């Protein structure tokens, strides 16, 4: 029995470790989700990976009405990262329900719908329509998108306004409600606590960090929108620190994301206290990233003799 490790997990794979996690009433077969805006509506990656294997699919952010988005250029690469200013282009809640949900319902993977609005009323409207739709398992509120000009980022950066919008949405839905936090704040712990106190079932972080690139020859900003959101490996240490701080501030589950490219990156977030993780920009570089990370986490647990992922969550040592 030399191969046996604690909890009956062995290197021979006799007992598979438990990867399933519970996030705000939502049971996921593993902690690995896709990050909103980087995985389309699921279809785009279905020819590369088996969507049934994912912990959850988080779709591109939706608003009550369709949005055109920003002019191009919308993206520019930066050192180990990228800036985007897509401008929240989306097909709108109604078209999503009629055109995209039939496809997503085929899979036995929970669908989490990321949504936003220009004002509290739009947030409520989107939440209400999505909540009455069959096959949607959870909602993720984007109160943090830095892509919109004047006034948009206030939802996620002002505690009072955030409290108002989350409280309002909470009243409109019985689905697990995840509030996605903006990193563009002074105290992430404060914002995490506000989300919890306003009725969130879980929080996810981080959304993109606001950034800018200037073309020195033309002396113009490269993005048509001038500023954009930074993502990719460049943001990871910031994201890990913020997730760690948020986990200490709240009791609700925390979903960690920001620059996760491979297994060890995901494990950092889990050890910092995240019950779930999301893969964003990595999908662009490696469409198999989600699946490889699920397998990588499982292998890590086998190697370390960990039988249940819940033992790993928040297991950070001093």
């Amino acid at each position, binding site marked *: 029995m030399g191969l046996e490790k604690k909890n009956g997990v062995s290197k021979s794979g006799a007992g598979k470790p438990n990867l399933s996690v519970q996030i705000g009433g939502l049971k996921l077969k593993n902690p690995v989700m896709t990050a909103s805006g980087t995985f*389309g509506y699921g279809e785009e990656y279905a020819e590369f990976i088996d969507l049934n294997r994912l912990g959850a699919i988080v779709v591109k952010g939706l608003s009550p009405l369709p949005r055109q*988005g920003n*002019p191009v250029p*919308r*993206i520019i690469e930066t050192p*180990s990262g990228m800036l985007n200013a897509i401008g929240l*282009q989306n097909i709108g809640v109604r078209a999503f329900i009629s055109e995209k949900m039939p496809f997503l319902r085929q899979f036995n993977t929970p669908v989490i719908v990321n949504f936003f609005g220009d004002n509290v009323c739009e947030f409520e409207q989107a939440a209400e329509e999505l909540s009455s739709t069959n096959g949607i398992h959870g909602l993720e509120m984007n109160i943090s998108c830095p892509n919109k000009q004047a006034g948009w980022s206030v939802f996620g950066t002002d505690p009072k306004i955030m409290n108002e919008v989350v409280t309002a949405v909470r009243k409109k839905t019985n689905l697990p409600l995840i509030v996605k936090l903006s990193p563009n704040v002074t105290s992430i712990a404060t914002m995490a606590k506000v989300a919890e106190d306003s009725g969130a079932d879980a929080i996810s972080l981080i959304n993109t960090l606001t950034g800018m690139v200037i073309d020195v020859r033309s002396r113009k900003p490269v993005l048509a929108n001038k500023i954009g959101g930074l993502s990719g490996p460049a943001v990871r240490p910031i994201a890990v620190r913020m997730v760690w701080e948020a986990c200490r501030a709240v009791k609700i589950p925390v979903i960690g994301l920001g620059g996760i490219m491979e297994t060890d990156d995901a494990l950092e977030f889990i050890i910092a206290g995240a019950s779930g993780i999301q893969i964003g920009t990595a999908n662009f570089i490696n469409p198999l990233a989600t699946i490889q990370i699920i397998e990588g986490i499982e292998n890590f647990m086998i190697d370390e003799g960990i039988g249940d992922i819940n033992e790993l969550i928040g297991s950070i040592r001093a």
Partner: protein
Amino acid sequence: MLEAAKGYDPLLKRPLSIFRYNDGIIQFLYRIRGKGTKCISELRKDDVVQLLGPLGNCYPQPSGDFIVLAGGIGIASVFSLFEKYPGRAYVYCGSRNCEELLMLEDIKRLAKEVCVTTDDGSVCRAGLITEPFREFIESAAFSNNPLPIYACGPNPMLQVLSTIISDKKLECHVSLEEVMACGVGACLGCVCKTKSGYSRICKEGPVFKIEDIVWD
């Protein structure tokens, strides 16, 4: 989408047209523009690279003769048409200077007629390729026997093309470029304006009917 480097800088894959495909060998023809293409140029024999593709659509099949308008490295996207349909293409090919004029001998061999310009006049006719192209389109010979047009090159060239043919009912397809992240339609980074709103160049394109494009 071709991997530019191992590791995360450069991070994103780079979109390149399939210049040639033969017996399991894919060839690319590219211009070193920045960091990504520089890294790709440093690849050596037996290096392993990741490729995501083929992605997007391609030019429709011409039924008879056809016209190609190519600016700069745009030639990479249309070249396979010459090989597939030898002796049928009227080629209008423009370049900044003679160094950037690529594959000219092959084009001459495969095309029905070739017209070349360089911006600086270092070889062939000086000026923009859209000028001789305009003369051809406006000639009586062409009006009597209109042909489909395929074009790839910088946006200003395509815009001139669209005004040249605007009042003529011609079949014209253009291949567009935009900075890309995913290449599969997920990020919505690579859009172009069309009559029905934004379209994804990597998914609905890169080849579009010119009349569907809205130029800024």
